């Protein structure tokens, strides 16, 4: 049976990362292999589950962030024989929290089987307004999903990866958008443009532990929460302007919604999951 490759990005929080890996293995052992990308962590701050330690000068100084970190992990797998072992990828940051004893990956895998046109699924959060829209124990397709826990079908990933001189800057996500503001809309637009849907499910939940960035930013060796937020928006808007000529988030929203609406023209049976 093929498995899911779970890739976790860590930077200088070994204890927290190891606890997350322990929980994932405990609750999902038969369904996933877990890989940890250390994005410029200090040598004495590596998780015991470290798979790859990226320690170039730039990465040590600035970190990798979600897009570059996930590109790195995916590329490493693609370059190895291991790529063949997997049929899906779960890409999460180390501040992701799952409820105890939740068989997250098993359930997400089941959803991919049950919904063959779903290319990407995000677990819902107990604190999201989308929860009411989706209903209990259900799934709906969205044109906008703001999260750091995405479960990808391998077929979709293989349609999107860049195999021409791939690096951690360009393999799957666009690493030029360092902090990733608006990049989630780009990947969702690409998902629908390639005849897949992007879903949120309430069958499993995940939460973002914001306190890591708020209280442990010095330990992580990154900017303060406020500074990070400011740069996140500034850099994202600059990126979207250069790449698409868009000037704000609403243009990006309309762009991904355009492909969302088209998708249902081609796959009318999927309308049952349209919001």
């Amino acid at each position, binding site marked *: 049976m093929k498995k899911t490759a779970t890739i976790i990005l860590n930077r200088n929080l070994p204890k927290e990362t190891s606890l997350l890996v322990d929980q994932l293995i405990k609750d999902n052992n038969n369904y996933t292999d877990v890989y940890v990308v250390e994005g410029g962590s200090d040598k004495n701050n590596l998780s015991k589950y470290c798979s790859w330690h990226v320690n170039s000068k730039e990465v040590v100084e600035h970190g990798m962030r979600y897009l570059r970190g996930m590109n790195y992990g995916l590329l490493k797998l693609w370059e190895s024989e291991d790529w063949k072992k997997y049929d899906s990828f779960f890409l999460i940051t180390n501040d992701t929290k799952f409820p105890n004893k939740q068989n997250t990956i098993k359930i997400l895998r089941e959803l991919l089987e049950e919904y063959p046109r779903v290319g990407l699924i995000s677990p819902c959060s107990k*604190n*999201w*307004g*989308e929860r*009411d*829209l989706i209903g209990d124990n259900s799934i709906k397709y*969205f*044109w*906008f999903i*703001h999260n750091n826990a995405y479960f990808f079908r391998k077929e979709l990933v293989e349609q999107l990866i860049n195999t021409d001189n791939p690096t951690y800057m360009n393999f799957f996500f666009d690493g030029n958008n360092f902090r990733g*503001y608006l990049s989630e809309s780009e990947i969702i637009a690409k998902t629908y443009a390639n005849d897949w849907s992007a879903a949120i499910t309430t069958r499993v939940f995940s939460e973002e532990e914001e306190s890591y960035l708020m209280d442990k930013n010095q330990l992580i060796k990154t900017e303060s929460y406020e500074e990070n*937020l400011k740069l*996140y*928006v500034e850099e*994202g808007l600059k990126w979207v302007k250069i790449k698409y000529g868009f*000037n*704000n*988030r*609403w243009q990006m*929203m309309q762009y991904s*919604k355009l492909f969302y609406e088209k998708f249902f023209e081609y796959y009318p049976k999927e309308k049952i999951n349209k*919001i």
Partner: protein
Amino acid sequence: MRLQQRLENFRQDKNCTLLGVGPMSKNCVDASIELAEQYKTPIMLIASRRQIDSEQFGGGYVENWTTEQFADYVNGKDINKNIILARDHGGPWQNELEKSQNMNLKDAMQSAKDSYRADIDAGFHMLHIDPSVDIHSKPDAAQTLERVYELYDFCWTYAKQKNQDIIFEIGTEEQSGSNNSKEELEFTLESMKNFCNTNKMPFPSFIVIQAGTRVMETENVGSFESPVRIKDELPPEIQIPQMIDICNKYGIFMKEHNTDYLSTESLKWQPRLGIHAANIAPEFGVAETRAFISVLKNNGCIDLLDEFITLSYKSKKWEKWMLKDTMSDDVDRAIIAGHYVFSSDEFIELKSKADNKIKGIDLYLKNKVKESIFRYMNAFNLT
């Protein structure tokens, strides 16, 4: 042409977002009338019951005007009838008197009807039926709808008797309102459709939708401009298109409240997102207060400035606008509360002293409010 048709045609021609301006002061009213005339555009003057109410309730804090006086003033100046006189958040317990007298439901509903009757008598064109406030209990969706029906029926019947063309707005922007989710909105609109069809009344023209805008202090702290999630709220990227689709399906305009202080870039997106109308109020009062402070400062009237700041601060009208972890000082608070004291005897005296020292003070203040309103008109494709 009937008002509903006129607004529909206007929106279709201009692909615009219609503008609702809170009549925060006489200068704000004048600024709206002049801009509406200059750009030949309809502007809704959206008077809350605290701002303007009938004589029975002692008028409101804006110019101490009663409903009739306010309507007479506007009608006297608005020669080409660009202004739409609108009641904002009419309904039981929406006036301080109904709260302070601890009125029961029956009396508060009667009181609201009296206020609406005065609106219709004064020639108001648009009535917002909002019975979401209840000082004794929290009405559920069905109870709220029953109250809407009763007030709607009263207003429509009375306006018909007077052969007056009125349109309606329903809903509330409160988080506890009945139209935040898709299902609740459809339920409200479907129920209204049945009610209006059964009773041969016109369907409401506007419904208030929570679109991620919320005003605190002098900023918009809602999710519309927030790059991160707000707990338990739908991201506006999802909420707004969904709500607009439903409104378009039912042929009703979506009205956004609390649109103050959004960036110009965000405002430009209101018509593009298909938001049919938006209300702005405190920002215009704050614009005038800031202008007044600046003119006193620039002309060396420091004593008057201190007097104004103290008067405004002591009014405590800033209280409901403050953020929990506010960093605002006393002057910031006075700026938030300034327009609430414009009609007090103390302010009138203070202003008269300023008038004696500074020429053309009201023209300056009006122009500053105009600049503030124009930012919205321009972004909303109304110019």
